[in-house]
């Protein structure tokens, strides 16, 4: 049986795959972090037998493949109502839950995972470092905490400078009828001059002269690449702001073999068997690696490029089940 670790809240990338599992009549069970802390399902974990029993039934041997997608993030939303000692209580309860989940991961470590439990979160800085070692070109990047060195970097790059968060934890902030988000930001001399002399360490990066962007869905050695082409030359520095524009066109794209080899090496180093990879193709024809998201969204590219990635993921999971069954 396939175990799906996902989110209690709506998660656009999960249900389409489950639809295909239903179509193929392959049994699966979906578990969210919410399921572990509510009383909706009776279960116990036995450390003596190293097993978990749901409604009295052992699941240790029935589960062979685990699809791990946006599971732990729900812990951030779990908190008790504000009051005395709430911060300490939230910390303690989240730690309890974390240790429970970590032990469950240990029990299921020998299963086949689509995104290993401990590889779900990557460090953008470490990834760029490893990408460079894999032979991929990456933008010149610095973490800086003061205005003078930002200005020097700005001049060093000929005025082509952006800033973006170090970590990939972009959320949104509601204020009235508006939603505020931190995206990639263009920096010019005026904005730099308005910065305080010292600030929290922030990521600054060379602004690459982009011809178009390439989003790659990687699945166990296979590449599904999408070129994001623009009508005209106007575009936002962050492609998220252009995603719904009629000037944006998504087309299937074939990466050069050498880039695929470099990306394969990077994904192996990161121990990732799936992920959404962002590349920039420069006006000079080079490919610049930006980042990889182990649980990136893929439905838009899947639809526009006829990739049917939700079906590909489902079939990958089913094939693991078949392989396990043939070995028994």
């Amino acid at each position, binding site marked *: 049986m396939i175990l799906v670790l996902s989110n209690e809240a709506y998660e656009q990338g999960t249900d389409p795959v*489950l639809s295909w599992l239903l179509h193929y009549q392959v049994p699966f069970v979906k578990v969210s972090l919410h399921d572990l802390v509510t009383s909706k399902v009776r279960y116990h974990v036995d450390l003596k037998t190293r097993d978990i029993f749901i409604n009295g039934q052992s699941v240790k041997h029935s589960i062979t493949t685990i699809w791990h997608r946006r599971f732990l993030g729900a812990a951030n939303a779990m908190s008790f109502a504000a009051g005395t000692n709430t911060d300490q209580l939230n910390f303690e309860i989240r730690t309890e839950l974390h240790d429970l989940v970590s032990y469950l991961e240990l029990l299921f470590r020998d299963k086949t995972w689509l995104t290993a439990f401990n590889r779900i979160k990557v460090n953008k800085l470490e990834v760029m470092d490893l990408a460079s070692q894999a032979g991929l070109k990456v933008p010149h990047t610095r973490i800086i905490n003061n205005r003078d060195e930002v200005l020097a970097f700005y001049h060093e790059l000929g005025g082509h400078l952006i*800033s*973006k968060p170090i970590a990939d934890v972009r959320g949104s*902030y509601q204020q009235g009828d*508006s*939603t505020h988000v*931190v995206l990639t*930001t263009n920096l010019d001399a005026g904005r730099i001059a308005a910065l305080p002399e010292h600030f929290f360490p922030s990521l600054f990066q060379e602004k690459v002269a982009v011809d178009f962007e390439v989003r790659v869905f990687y699945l166990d050695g296979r590449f599904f690449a999408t070129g994001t082409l623009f009508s005209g030359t106007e575009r936002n520095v962050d492609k998220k*702001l252009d995603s719904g524009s009629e000037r944006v*066109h998504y087309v299937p794209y074939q990466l050069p073999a050498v880039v695929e080899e470099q990306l394969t090496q990077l994904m192996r180093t990161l121990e990732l068997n799936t992920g959404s990879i962002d590349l920039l193709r420069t006006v000079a024809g080079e490919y610049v690696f930006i980042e990889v998201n182990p649980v990136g969204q893929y439905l838009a590219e899947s639809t526009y490029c006829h990739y049917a990635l939700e079906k590909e993921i489902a079939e990958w999971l089913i094939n693991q089940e078949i392989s396990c069954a043939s070995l028994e």
Partner: protein
Amino acid sequence: MRVIGIGSVFTDELLVELPIGYRFMVQIAADSFGENYVGKRFSTSAQHQSRNYRCVVPKKPVSNLVTQDYLANPS
């Protein structure tokens, strides 16, 4: 996505202690921000084991690359 402008939801005092990106937050009309799911309807699906199920409208998968992009500019 309707962008209203650039700004911050945080005070100047707090911004001093934050990464610089929080000074240049993109202000977007909340009802046009996809992740808010404003106006979207959710249900449940026992088959999908989901209590927040959204039946996405089936659509014919077509590239939105339009013919005019391939046509040479007459000028």
